[in-house]
């Protein structure tokens, strides 16, 4: 492998990894704070894909406006889904399995709803950024570079909110001990809703960045949900920072593996790595550093 090829491989790995990190960190935030495994998270990504298609392509809104509307809408939807479906179940004493079943049901419902509304066809979103950046012999489309930059920016903002603001403190407190948080007056239920909204916003950002590279369709969230869960497990269940790091690691593993074996093997290698990690370190690579 030449030096140029190696650099391109690493950058491509970081770009894929940034999407995995966006999706995985959202899942980790939810699990870390509420102990809920949200199987409908991929469908929020899918819906955000359709929203950006609607705003940016069908309605022709400027990119910034379309992206902002998509993020706001998907965050409201994430909060609403939590309030309507998950929060009532969490009031029961044995809610763990019923919530899993509910989010699986929600996932199927949203996929079927998308099929009914938008049909089964795969729809493309044009590139938001045109041209190719050339640095020496390394060539990279601006659209892909934008993915990495925007994803890092959004996750950085989330990290700042989590670790430097009052909202972040109450989210972390609720994640570490929801009953103790309640006892000091923190409305844990409202914190859970906020976390679902933030998590949906992260998935929505992923969808906006991804939609020009893959087609928007009712099933686009499924494979990313699986990768998201892989990232959550690799990072240590519930660890926001761990999920971000694991997302980039997974992206790099996939990208480097493609350089040596046919691309069909990249998922096999990524999940083999996941199994190896679970075997050697069941608590994940970055356990104990939860939100």
């Amino acid at each position: 492998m030449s030096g140029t090829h190696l650099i391109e491989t690493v950058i491509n790995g970081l770009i894929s990894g940034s999407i995995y990190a966006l999706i995985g960190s959202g899942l980790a935030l939810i699990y870390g704070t509420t102990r809920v495994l949200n199987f409908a998270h991929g469908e929020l990504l899918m819906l955000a894909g359709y929203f950006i298609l609607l705003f940016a392509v069908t309605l022709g809104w400027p990119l910034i406006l379309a992206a902002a509307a998509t993020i706001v809408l998907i965050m409201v939807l994430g909060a609403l889904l939590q309030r309507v479906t998950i929060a009532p179940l969490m009031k029961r004493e044995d809610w763990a399995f019923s919530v899993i079943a509910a989010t699986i049901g929600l996932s199927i419902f949203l996929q079927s709803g998308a099929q009914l509304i938008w049909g089964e066809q795969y729809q493309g979103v044009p590139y938001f950024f045109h041209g190719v950046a050339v640095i020496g012999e390394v060539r990279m489309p601006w659209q892909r570079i934008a993915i990495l930059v925007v994803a890092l920016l959004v996750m950085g903002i989330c990290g700042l909110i989590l670790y430097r603001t009052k909202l972040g403190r109450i989210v972390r407190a609720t994640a570490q001990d929801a009953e103790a948080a309640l006892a000091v007056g923190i409305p844990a239920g409202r914190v859970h809703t906020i976390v679902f909204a933030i998590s949906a916003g992260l998935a929505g950002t992923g969808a906006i960045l991804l939609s020009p590279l893959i087609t928007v369709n009712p099933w686009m969230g499924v494979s990313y949900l699986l990768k998201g869960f892989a990232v959550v497990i690799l990072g240590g269940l519930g660890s926001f920072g761990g999920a971000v790091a694991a997302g980039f690691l997974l992206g790099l593993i996939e990208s480097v593996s493609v350089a040596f074996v046919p691309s069909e093997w990249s998922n096999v290698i990524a999940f083999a790595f996941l199994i190896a990690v679970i075997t050697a370190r069941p608590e994940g690579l970055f356990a104990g550093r939860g939100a």
Partner: protein
Amino acid sequence: MLQLERVNVHYGATRVLWDVSMSVGAGEMVAVMGPNGSGKSTVLKAAMGLKKPSSGVVSLNGEELQAKPATVRPQRGMSIVLERRRLFPRMSVEENIMLGAYVRKAAEARETYDWVLEILPEIKPHLQATAGRLSGGQQQMVAIARGLMADPKILLMDEPFLGLSPAMVKTVLAIMKTINERGVAILFNEQNAKLSFAVSHRGYLLESGRVVLSGSGEEMLEHPEVKRVYLGVREAAA
């Protein structure tokens, strides 16, 4: 001040409190004593709103609270130190303490913070330490500090001596007396009868979720049943 009237609590189909009635007056120190599984912690959780009673009344200064969420209690002047400290383990000691003042304005909280550190000076050197890495005794100090940050008129303490060394038990007891002397009522639970009733103005004995005995601390210590079952004292042969 705090009143529990005929409070019943269920965990699923299991009834754990049976018509429990008790009260804590302003400035009082009241102990709830009983063996393991007698429902002591449930009494405190029901009072704090962390466990919803299936029936009965929980009121603070005449205001009925049983149907209101737990988050209302700190605003009304009730606070709790949970069993086994229950700090936010990956946050700093200072963050833990300041979260105790979540319902208050920053300026008021700062005043209480100074007062709390005056009562609990042992915490000062550890303010930036990660709370989960402190010793059990130090964690209990932080838990008490967090509980006081709400500026409570009544502080509930769930098994405040659990897992502490004898020396630390003495320290925590002294802190409780200081807090109480400053006008904060305390309702605490404990398994040790001597420890419970020697320091409290009044006490309740709880068995299988029922209040079976109540009286002043002295009366409780002198009660033949308490002496026989919980203090291991045999009556002299007649």
